[in-house]
């Protein structure tokens, strides 16, 4: 069974939208019949990516975060994009516990969480242009 479904949305870079974004994605993927665990994994990963865009990508809450989702068969691909500051050193940014905002008590675990809860995470970024995080997860692949 090969089904395809796609959605795109954008919203203000306000922290209140972090919850909105993860719930929106969770409802969108509901048709794939994910387990509760899979839903929670996806919500956590989306929350991390969107929070990064809001905290690190942008300084103004009026800036927009773009969120898109493509379901293809049993796999969902989620992209979170901003047109903000960009990441100078992606490898460094993805290191566990690395954070550029210790004053906000960031744990530095955002990318680690995305990688732990999704099957694949790709980050591309250009300084001054923005960052795009693409994450894929196969639904129904979980053991136990």
């Amino acid at each position, binding site marked *: 069974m090969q089904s395809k479904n796609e959605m795109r949305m954008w919203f203000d870079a306000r*922290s*209140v939208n*972090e*919850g909105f974004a*993860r719930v929106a994605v969770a409802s969108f993927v509901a048709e794939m019949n994910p387990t509760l*665990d899979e839903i*929670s994994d996806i*919500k*956590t990963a989306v*929350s*991390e990516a969107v*929070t990064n865009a*809001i*905290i690190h990508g942008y300084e103004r809450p009026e800036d927009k975060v773009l969120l898109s989702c493509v379901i293809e068969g049993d796999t969902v691909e989620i992209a979170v994009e901003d047109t903000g500051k960009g990441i100078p050193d992606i490898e460094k940014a993805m290191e566990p516990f690395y954070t550029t905002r210790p004053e*906000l*008590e*960031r*744990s*530095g*675990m*955002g990318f*680690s*969480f995305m990688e*732990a*809860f999704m099957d694949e995470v790709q980050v591309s970024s250009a300084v001054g242009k923005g960052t795009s995080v693409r994450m894929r997860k196969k639904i129904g692949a979980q053991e136990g």
Partner: protein
Amino acid sequence: METYCELKDGYLLVHVPRELDHHRAGSLRMEADLLIDAYQVRKVVFDFSGTEFMDSSGIGVIIGRSRNMGYCGGEVTAQNLNERIRKIFMVSGLHKIVKTEGGVAGNTNRMEKNHAE
């Protein structure tokens, strides 16, 4: 303003909200720190009975309080973790820093509420 914290005899009980993300983290941290400073709290207990979601922002709040408590010889513990929160603790390694009631790896059934006084 919503309040999350409750001063108990000898410790600060933090009722972690239903969803603890970056959006909620700021106000929770502010409230807890205010009380910790004002009442010289030396023990903080994070209660997750009502918590369904937590991401790395929540981890930041707990690690931060744990570090501050460490400076003054206090401690931070966590209780009533559901399966999801357990997973978050495990993946982040938080279970190595913060003592949890009943451990984190334990059985998957809902934990019994036997808060020792």
